[in-house]
Structure formats: C-alpha cells, structure tokens
C-alpha cells in the first residue's frame, strides 16, 4: 500500500526528530545588497563579473530549496543592487525590511555595512557581512545584529603566518599599499607576525602606483625593482587588496624570494583549484549555473544564504527570534566544503573556518596547520580569540 504510506509520511512531515505536528509551508526570503561593478578596462583577463557575489547567493537559494522541498520550506532571493558603488545602502535595506525580509546579505565595504546595521537597530533583522574583512567590524565597531561569514583580515594573515611557521620562513618583508584596506591588511600582518613569532625585518610603503595594471609596453619602473635591494627576508608579503600592484612584485625582487599576502601565495576562502571536501561538486554546480568559475565573494554569499537555510531547516522556523540565537548555539554547524563544520564565535559573531592558502594554480596548504592547538577548537587559533576581543555586545 504505497499510496497509504505516502499519505502517512505527508502527515508525519519531515524529520522524525521534530516534535511538531503537520507543518504549514514555510517561505523565507533573503535579501542581498551589492554594489554594481564598474565597467572593466578595454581588456582585462580576469575582469570582475557583474554578478560577483550575487551568483553565489543564487546557488545558495537553489541549495536551500533542494533541501527545503523535503521540509515544506521554500526560499527566495530579493536582489538589490545599489545605484552607484558608494550610494547609501540604508534606503535599500529599509525597503527590504519593509517587505518583511529579515535576513540581509551584504557584499559591501565596512562603512556601508555599519550604516545598514545601525539603521536596522531596533528591528529583528539580521545582517550577514559577506564582503568586508575589516577587523574593526569584529572589534570596536562590532554590532549585535551583524554576523560575519567571511574571515577577518586577522584570520587571513594568521593563516599565512601559520604556513610560514611550518616552513620556517621567519623573516618577512612587508610592502603596504596606500589604501585604508591595505593599511588594515598590513596591520594584520604585523599582528600575526607577533602572534606567531615571525619577524618583520623590512616594512615599506608601495609608492610606485598600480604597476600590475600597466601594459607590457610600459617602460619598466627600475626604482620599483631596486627598492627590494639590500634587505634580509624570507618572503615578501604584499598588502594590496585592490590588486593594483601586488602581482608586479613576484619575479621582480632583487633577491630571489617568494611572495605572498594579497597576491601570489594567498590566504583566502575559495579558489577554482579547491576540489577536496566535496568542493569539486560545488565548483561544477556553480559553473553550470553562472557560466563562470566561482570566486571568493560568490562562496561567501553562498555561505551566508546556506547559513540561513541550514538554520531554518534545523529549527523548522524562520523568525529571527528563533534563528538568531541558534546561530551561536553549539548545535549550529554548517558544512561548507572545508572538511569541518563552520560555526559562529559568540563573542564577535565571526564565523570560524579553515582558510586555504593557495597560489593561482594550486592549493598549497590549509590553516589551521597541524600542531596549532587550542583548548576550544584549532579553528580558534585563527583571528581574535575571546580573551583579546574588543567587541562588546549590549
């Protein structure tokens, strides 16, 4: 009597762990606010795609729905591009919340994240920061209604520092770019060096402009090459988050030394070369859906959307009153192609996660490295730990 079986199953609903009676369909809409991409240069081999980030969120919704259909749950994405990159995101956020949306994914810089978070204070809406690595958002400027799915700069540079420790490359030549982001990254490198007992033996600003974007027929900038002369170091660490000049440094240092940081050997969340822990499936699924390779911002937006989906599936509810406390509950753990579950640190809402260390064509390592131990989880060897946090939630 298969027909009868199906009816019984329908009434009993989904997972047997549930103690609830028949479930009503549960619909959840997740909003995403993102910046429009500026038109690329006439030729850019790896131009930033227009749908960077948002394509990952779309895949996350598809995955949420594949799961949700067994639970009578459905998920939808409301996409809200800003008119210009620096436009005020508050109107967009308020519009989404006005429609009843309670989960907002932002692929925006820190200042815009803070504006949205502060504008939504007093509502029960939750913000997922998928684009801003700034440590201050997890420290002095932390907000109780913001969860950070991407690693902080401190976590990224700690991952690189752990790898350098394993390799015994202890002397760093730090080259910092001119932007605020670059200064933040350089500060994180200095902190990681202290934390892992490495030495910054040379520390210089980059003053030669966006040479990585120069053309092949541009005259070689000799002074950019000689400024690496006469230094004692094992690795040059570049801090260039915009990708303006970091790729100019490898193979142009006076002494033959490897390069890492924001370019060359990079600590990051995602790379097309990642295939372990089931990542190959996600790469293929993304390529089929978006027609291109998955980028870190795509992955981070996917993690944010899957975080909401996973929590709604587990709790069989979608109200922030139920979902938000669950995110920092030990029972929450998101599988996200990193071999271990990702979870949120209660003290600053930063997602714990392994960080891959890659060069453009190959995976080199993954942090936490073997032997870096922590009383809670090795993942907490990356970034700011509970005793050091400057974040205070009300």
């Amino acid at each position, binding site marked *: 009597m*298969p*027909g009868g*079986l*199906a009816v019984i*199953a329908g009434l*009993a609903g*989904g*997972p*047997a*762990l549930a103690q609830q009676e028949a479930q009503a369909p549960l619909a959840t809409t997740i909003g995403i606010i993102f910046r429009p991409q500026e038109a690329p240069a006439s030729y850019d081999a790896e131009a930033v795609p227009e749908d960077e980030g948002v394509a990952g969120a779309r895949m996350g919704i598809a*995955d949420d729905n*594949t*799961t949700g*259909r*067994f*639970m009578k749950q459905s998920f939808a994405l409301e996409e809200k591009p800003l008119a210009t990159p620096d436009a005020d995101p508050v109107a967009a956020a308020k519009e989404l919340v006005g429609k009843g949306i309670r989960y907002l994914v932002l692929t925006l810089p820190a200042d815009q994240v803070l504006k949205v978070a502060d504008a939504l204070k007093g509502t029960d809406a939750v913000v997922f920061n998928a684009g801003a690595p700034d440590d201050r958002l997890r420290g002095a400027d932390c907000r109780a209604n913001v969860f950070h799915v991407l690693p902080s700069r401190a976590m990224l540079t700690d991952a690189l520092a752990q790898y350098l420790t394993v390799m015994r490359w202890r002397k760093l030549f730090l080259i910092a770019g001119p932007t605020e982001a670059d200064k933040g990254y350089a500060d994180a490198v200095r902190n990681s060096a202290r934390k892992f007992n490495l030495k910054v033996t040379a520390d210089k600003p980059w003053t030669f402009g966006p040479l990585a974007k120069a053309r092949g027929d541009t005259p070689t900038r000799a002074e950019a090459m000689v400024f690496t002369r006469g230094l004692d170091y094992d690795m040059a660490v570049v801090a260039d988050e915009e990708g303006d000049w970091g790729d100019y440094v490898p193979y142009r240092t006076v002494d033959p030394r490897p390069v890492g940081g924001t370019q060359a050997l990079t600590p990051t969340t995602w790379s097309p070369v990642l295939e372990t822990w*089931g990542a190959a*499936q996600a790469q*293929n*699924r993304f390529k089929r859906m978006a027609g291109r390779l998955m980028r870190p911002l795509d992955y981070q937006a996917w993690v944010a959307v899957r975080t909401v989906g*996973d929590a709604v*599936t*587990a709790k069989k509810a979608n109200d922030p009153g139920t979902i938000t406390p669950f995110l920092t509950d030990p029972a929450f*753990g*998101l*599988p996200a192609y990193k*071999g*271990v*579950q990702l979870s949120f640190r209660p003290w600053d809402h930063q997602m714990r996660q392994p960080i891959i260390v890659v060069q453009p064509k190959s995976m080199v390592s993954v942090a936490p490295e073997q032997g870096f131990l922590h009383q809670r*989880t*090795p*993942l907490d060897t990356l970034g700011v730990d509970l005793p050091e946090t400057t974040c205070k939630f009300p």
Partner: protein
Amino acid sequence: MGRTVGAGWGALALTTWLASSLPAFAFTAYVTNEKGNSVSVIDTTTMAVTATWKVGRRPRGVTLTKDGKELFVCASDDDRIDVLDTSSGKVVRSLRSGPDPEQFILAASGNPLYVANEDDSQVTIIDIEKNKVLAEVPVGVEPEGMGLSPDGTILVNTSETTNMAHFIDTKTFQVIDNVLVDARPRFAEFTADGKYLWVSAEVGGTVSIIDVAARRVIKKITFKIPSVNDEAIQPVGIRITKDGSKAFVALGPANRVAVIDAKSYEVQKYLPVGQRVWQLAFTPDQKQIFTTNGTSNDVSVIDVEAEKVVKSIPVGLLPWGVAISPN
C-alpha cells in the same frame, strides 16, 4: 602460507577445510582508483594485486553482480557506469547512469541498480538488463550514500549538503520520508534484520542509528581518539556483520577504523589503517574487511575476528571504493 599453489580445486578445498581460520576461498577484491582511472584487482588469499584495469574517468562507487561475473564501476566524470567482465577485465558495456554517478546499490534480485547522481540532486533507477532508466527520483543536494533494506522494499539515499536520509519506496519510486542527520551524510547501511539504519556524517563526526519503522534517530555514536583532533574524525564507510554483533566505521583523515559493538553502540577500539580511509567491504565469509585509504594509496586488510590489521596493499592513485566477489 604453506599451501601448495596450483594443486587444483580438490587440494585447495581440502587445505582450506583443514585450516578453517584462513579465508575459505580465494575471493577477489576490486578497488576503484579515483585519480588513477583504474580498478586494482586483489587476490584476497595472497593479498597481492593481480591486475590493474583501465576504466572511465574518476571511478568511485563499485559493486558486483551476485555471481561475481560482472563488475559495475561509476565513471563519475564520464557520466556513465562501466560494466566489466571480471574474467577478462574488459569494459563490455556502459549503463546510462545520469550525470555524475557516485555510489550505487544493486537490488538483491540482481536488478535494478539504484544510482546516486551527485551533481544532479537525484537518484536514478536503472534496469541493467535493458539499460533503461526506470525512474529519476529528486533528492537533496549532493546525493551519495545508498542503502537497501534487506527485503528490498526501501531504498535510502543520503544527501551530503541537505543532511538527510531520504527513504524511497522501491515500488513507487516516491520519497516517503526524510530524516535529518548530522552534517554531510556519506553512507547508509541497514542491519541484516532490517530494523535499523546506520548513517555516517562526515563533517558532523557522528553515526546516527535510525529506527527504520519509526524513522527516528534513536542513537548517535560519537568518537574520541587520544592525540587525534575531533575535526579529523570524519566517519564515512560503515559495515555491519550479518550476525549483527560488530560494526566497522571508517573515520577518514583520523586514519582509523572504529570497531563498534553493534548491540550496545559502544566503540570497542580504533584500528590504525592507511591515510584518509573511506570505504569498507567484507569478504563474503566476513572473515576480513578491506579498507580504501585515499591519501596513502593503499588498502588495509582487517581480520574481523581478531580485530587486527593484518596487511596493507599498495593500489592505484586515490583508492575510493571496494567490492569483493565470491569467486
């Protein structure tokens, strides 16, 4: 082993009868090498690789017909299942598996074959005689583990990203229920009496025991190994003895196989095997269990009674699955 080689069937049978603690017959183990695009063939008596056969790209799931004459291999990147004649080692035909077949299970009657299509969120059911797709059943994201109840009426598929065990009626091909388990379920194994289903959760680090009739998780087995990070304990393959006394669970990068009292659900011991151990298979007499160790490119052989690793056999690149034939 002090046995006359090539003494003919009579002598062989006599010898094995005398030494009954040894494997009763020379079984053959087939190991798929995910990155080697090959199958390593192992004689379970000599514990040596006797042949290496070329198959399609990214071979993972592997199983045999009941008579051991045909070997089925999921050629995941070729979107097909290769069928090999075990007497010649040649691919004799390919089955239309649907995209990216990863694991499958053959009905006790020998037909049909139930296939998990990892990239496509579905289970494909194939009539292997007619090479015809009987049904495609939508399931969760990244379906992988496949278990069949001993009476053949219920098929269970686990979906790695959806974190569920989907119960499928094998007559109607409908999903009749879903049970949430821990993160990244990789494998589903029924007990021989059909009452319980064991499901491993690779990222969750647990094995859930599901009461099949109630479709409810009644117990979660957790693992603790001194000097091994909890994060490295990633359960994948599960095998339970026919008498229901012992279960073996492969623990991935913990490089151990857990031996569990299948009645009390207590972990008895952890056997050190090769690196990143994923899949397991008993010899037909259940005296030995073979493990595939992906990172160390070898197979470990465990003596089931003694609960000891007795041999490690080098195979091809990234061994994934293992199936053992009665002949």
